[in-house]
């Protein structure tokens, strides 16, 4: 454009017109984002509504103290499945949290560029994508076949393998998020590696690490396939970690395929309980480990 022929009013009107179309484009995009955000809420909200609708009628305190009803019978509860799920997820966490967090510390703090660290990172990333049924088959081969039977231990082991990569990767991210300046200050005051990690880095990263652990718990608590291969199911209360053990997810799987309306309804209630348990665990962790 020949600048000498452009007057002030040309520039003014030209830019007005352009900013007009820009404003419209901006508004369209804003609306689009809001609509899409609302769309993502639909499946989530429908699941919760459906769970409440179908699960609430049977949700009473006594279902937590009673054993599952036999086929065709009414009454009963899901007490042993709740206990089984809590125990096996607990076992999984006891196994995978220390291992995962310590691996992340090694990978991020001690030897960030070593071959071993790169291998750990690579394998962890691969394992996050592994189907949960593979963890079940692996635990079946390693624990069930060698110990001679289905057990809570085997279930916990399968869930531990399932959660380990998530814990390693989220813990590593959490450690990366600790400012380098805090580490420098600590080393500058004469702290050792060990002191810097335990007194400065870990407390700083703890809330983020716990978020990762809770993500892993949420996933583990709902897994069915690995438990069918390892803990199977039981009609009775948990007596020993070496016996087949009931779990909410397997109970849901079993009952939802039965032709009895009461059992199907019980499966809905168990689903609701599972979601409530995971939510409680999440909220508690957030409250306890919130950054002060």
């Amino acid at each position, binding site marked *: 454009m020949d600048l000498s022929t452009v007057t002030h009013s040309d520039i003014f009107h030209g830019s007005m017109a352009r900013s007009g179309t820009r404003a419209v484009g901006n508004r369209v995009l804003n609306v689009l984002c809001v609509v899409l955000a609302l769309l993502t809420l639909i499946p989530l909200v429908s699941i919760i509504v459906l769970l409440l609708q179908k699960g609430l009628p049977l949700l009473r305190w006594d279902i937590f103290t009673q054993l599952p009803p036999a086929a065709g019978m009414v009454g009963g509860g899901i007490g042993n499945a709740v206990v089984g799920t809590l125990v096996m997820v607990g076992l999984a966490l006891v196994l995978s949290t220390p291992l995962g967090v310590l691996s992340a510390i090694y990978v991020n703090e001690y030897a960030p*560029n070593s071959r071993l660290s790169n291998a750990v990172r690579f394998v962890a990333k691969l394992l996050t994508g592994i189907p949960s049924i593979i963890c079940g088959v692996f635990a079946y081969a390693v624990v069930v076949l060698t110990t001679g039977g289905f057990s809570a231990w085997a279930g916990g082991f399968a869930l531990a393998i399932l959660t380990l990569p998530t814990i390693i990767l989220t813990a590593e991210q959490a450690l990366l998020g600790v*400012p380098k*300046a*805090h580490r*420098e*200050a*600590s*080393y*500058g*005051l*004469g*702290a*050792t590696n060990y*002191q810097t990690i335990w*007194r*400065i880095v870990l*407390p*700083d990263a703890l809330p983020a690490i716990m978020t990762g652990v809770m993500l892993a718990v949420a996933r583990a608590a709902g897994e069915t396939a690995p438990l069918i291969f390892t803990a199977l199911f039981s009609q009775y209360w948990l007596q020993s970690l070496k016996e087949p053990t009931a779990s909410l997810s397997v109970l849901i799987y079993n009952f939802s395929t039965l032709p009895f309306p009461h059992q199907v309804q019980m499966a809905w209630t168990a689903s609701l309980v599972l979601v409530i348990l995971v939510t409680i665990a999440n909220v508690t962790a957030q409250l306890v480990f919130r*950054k*002060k």
Partner: protein
Amino acid sequence: MESNTPTADSTPAETARRADFIKVSRFNFYYGRKQALFGIDLSIPQREVTAFIGPSGCGKSTLLRNFNRMNDLIDGVRHDGEITINGRSIFDPRLEIIALRRSIGMVFQKSNPFPKSIYENVVYSLRIAGQNNRKTLDETVERSLRGAALWDEVKDRLHDSALGLSGGQMQRLCIARAIANKPEVLLMDEPCSALDPIATAKVEELIHALKREFTIVIVTHNMQQATRCSDNTAFFYLGKLIEFDRTAKLFSNPAQKQTEDYITGRFG
């Protein structure tokens, strides 16, 4: 090095020891293949303030970070030549790096208090040495915070989070933390570059007061700051030490053309 005559302070050996408190000899330093420092020779006297000036990337911070071997935290660095503090090589394999860093306080460009209480920030160096005696810790907190001219402002909220302090207070807290362990040397890496003029003035006053007890080395981009608070100034350019002299002499009558160009603002 130690003299056992009663008049130790005036013997020639003692005078020499004081003048060469930190002694750098033919020191080269490399980040990987890139050489950052070239044949540095420098003697920093005890209980005086020595300023390092020079344009960005001239190596002044690198040299400072060698004194307490913070550069060891970086992969692929190496050095040759020698640095001694109070007559002792800091690269002596028998010297524990932990002990070295305990005897040298460091204050960083960006204040970096831990996300802990004011109290716990100050006593960190004692805690990591296993000192948990309440009385000792309390005394250290008061002495260090008074030393950093922060006591009156925070004495009623010692157990509040350090992150609630203002920028200038945080930096003085970092100074308090650095002197809690009674180090011999205090290294300051552009301690005022993120502070407003009032907070800067407070820290400079503090530097004046602290040199009675500590040997202070300060890296600064601010030449007024160097003239205001240092006794000696070293000018670095492209990894070389161009000139080192009393501050008054270097700024009024520099021996080197490059120094003169830099301090008169012709480059850098």
